[in-house]
């Protein structure tokens, strides 16, 4: 009995202490600035489409009061109040929405954060790495700052399970094809070593032709591309229509007709909205790209 009592008292004490600690919850964002997350935020503004997607995935859509004009997924996000774009969010609009949490991403200009902080607005900036796995800590951090740690944890687990499954399906891939990933369709803009799309190609067991160039985005040299002779060309496009335009350009006007990709018609569509945002749908992009590069690994019933 006494042991139980002592145990109960101790437990209470521990709970009390943790309650005291929980009274003040200061979190530092990825730029090192403190954010007071003691109370769960009720009015959230997202400054980037990938952040919006994560907030909605954590069932926080009801608390989101403002998004950028690029936030179009899920559908409900498109109906939220627009605060401008990623580069030009409007401070006045933001103030008027009276937010208690503004989540920024590294694509926003640094001066915007400074401007908002000077106006005493509660900014929290996220900047995780440039690998595919970095979306997991990103989701967890958003979970922490919004007091939805548990939901975030479950969501990460399910995403990670899908991710691992794709990776294990790819284990039997023998040949890694040389991939040229076209960013804007027409023209030879592609992604270099420092871009997360490079990691996407790598994880899908492809070899990014521009993967050795230590930059994020670059315009690739046509002659060099013909010399490298890609086996697959993947075109990021907003719609099938844009894709067909770009594909036509690749086939008829880019002088790439001698390359394996064009000769064997291995020119594929990848939805830009899936692949270009560092959000949960990146896993779907990984799956789609993996299926394009290694269809034999995804034969049903295998």
């Amino acid at each position, binding site marked *: 009995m006494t042991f139980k009592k002592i145990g109960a008292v101790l437990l209470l004490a521990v709970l009390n202490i943790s309650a005291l600690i929980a009274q003040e919850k200061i979190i530092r964002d990825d730029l090192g600035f403190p954010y007071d997350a003691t109370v769960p935020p009720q009015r959230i503004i997202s400054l980037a489409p990938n952040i919006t997607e994560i907030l909605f995935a954590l069932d926080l859509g009801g608390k989101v009061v403002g998004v950028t*004009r690029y936030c179009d997924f899920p559908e409900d996000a498109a109906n939220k109040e*627009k*605060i*401008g*774009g990623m*580069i*030009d969010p*409007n*401070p*006045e*609009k933001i*103030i*008027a929405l*009276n937010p208690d949490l503004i989540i920024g991403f590294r*694509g926003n*200009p*640094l*001066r915007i954060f*400074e*401007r908002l902080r*000077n*106006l*005493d607005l509660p900014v929290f900036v996220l900047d995780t790495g440039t690998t595919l796995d970095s979306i997991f800590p990103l989701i967890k951090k958003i979970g922490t700052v919004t007091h939805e740690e548990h939901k975030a944890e479950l969501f990460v687990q399910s995403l990670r399970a899908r991710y691992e499954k794709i990776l294990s399906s790819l284990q039997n891939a023998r040949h890694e094809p040389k991939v040229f990933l076209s960013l804007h369709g027409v023209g030879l*803009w592609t992604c270099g070593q420092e871009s997360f799309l490079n990691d996407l190609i790598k994880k899908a067991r492809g070899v990014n032709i521009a993967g050795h160039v230590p*930059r*994020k*985005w*670059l*315009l690739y040299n046509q002659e060099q591309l013909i010399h490298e002779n890609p086996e697959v060309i993947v075109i990021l496009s907003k719609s099938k229509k844009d894709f067909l335009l770009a594909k036509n350009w690749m086939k008829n006007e880019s002088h790439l007709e001698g390359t394996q990709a064009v000769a064997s018609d291995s020119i594929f569509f990848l939805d830009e909205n899936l692949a270009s945002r560092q959000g949960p749908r990146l896993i779907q992009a990984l799956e789609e790209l993996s299926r394009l590069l290694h269809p034999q690994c995804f034969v049903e019933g295998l």
Partner: protein
Amino acid sequence: MKARSKRLILLAVLLFLFVSGFLLSLLEGPVETNVGDLFDFLFHNLHDETLRKIFIDLRLSRALLAFLVGASLSLSGAILQGYFQNPMAGPFVVGVSSGASFGAVLCIYLGLNLRFLGFSLQSVFAFASGFAIVFLVYLLSQKKGIFKMETLLLTGIAAGALASALTSFLIFFKSESYQEAVFWLLGSFRYSDWNQITAMLPYFLLCFIVAQWLAKDMNLLVQGDDIAQSLGSPVNRVRKTFLVVSTLLAASSVSVSGIIGFIGLVVPHWVRILIGPDHRHLFFFSSLTGGIFLVYSDFIARTLLSPSELPIGIITAAVGAPFFIYLLSQRR
């Protein structure tokens, strides 16, 4: 009409436009406010946080900064047009803008976002490199102590082209900073705050007073250096002072707002067409007109596609050019 009454009429019109421009800027924005809100804020509710931020920290600071920059650029243009006796001259002719934008884009490229004595490092970089390039151009255009204006103009253009090339290279090399750089290269007041006003105001006042002080000498310079010299004007000293003053004005403007084209070239011409070429009045009226013109331009830039913003350089050229052509055609 007598010159004096012409000036008085212009002054009255400008004062009216000045007041209405500021009122318009204070009342209009993505958040709906009316005159009642403004009065309520001013006389009853001065401590309302949200209204204070919107009226004072965002709208008023922005309009004031636009006025200061417009006045600075126009004054700088008026000075340089007299200095070179060339109607094509503007505040950016000696390479200030190209130098300053190189500094700013370098800062964006390096991802630097520190503050220096309360100012954004980007502004400090821009100011320093804008000033440095003019100094360099000045040194390069001297040969054995002999100084030719034509050489100064051409060296300025060449150095500007070189700096622009470097800027374009940086933007191209790191294409993700492209959009941010565009706002810099076409000008914008979206980062305006009170710090920038306190930084600019002393420069502007100092430069304005010096320019006004030397306006008589400018009137002589326009007749040719020899004549000015024989009439007792210390030509060399006056020229150096004007060059420093116009550079200070342009560099400080660019460092807070980016490159706002056209205004510095065209406003002095407007004023000259309206009240004549006497620099004693030209400097004052150019400053006032330029300031007001930019307050209205910024108003359009931030409200036309609200809540998104346009770079202001688009507005100054789109609104200013037709009006300029109209005035020119009237003069013929």
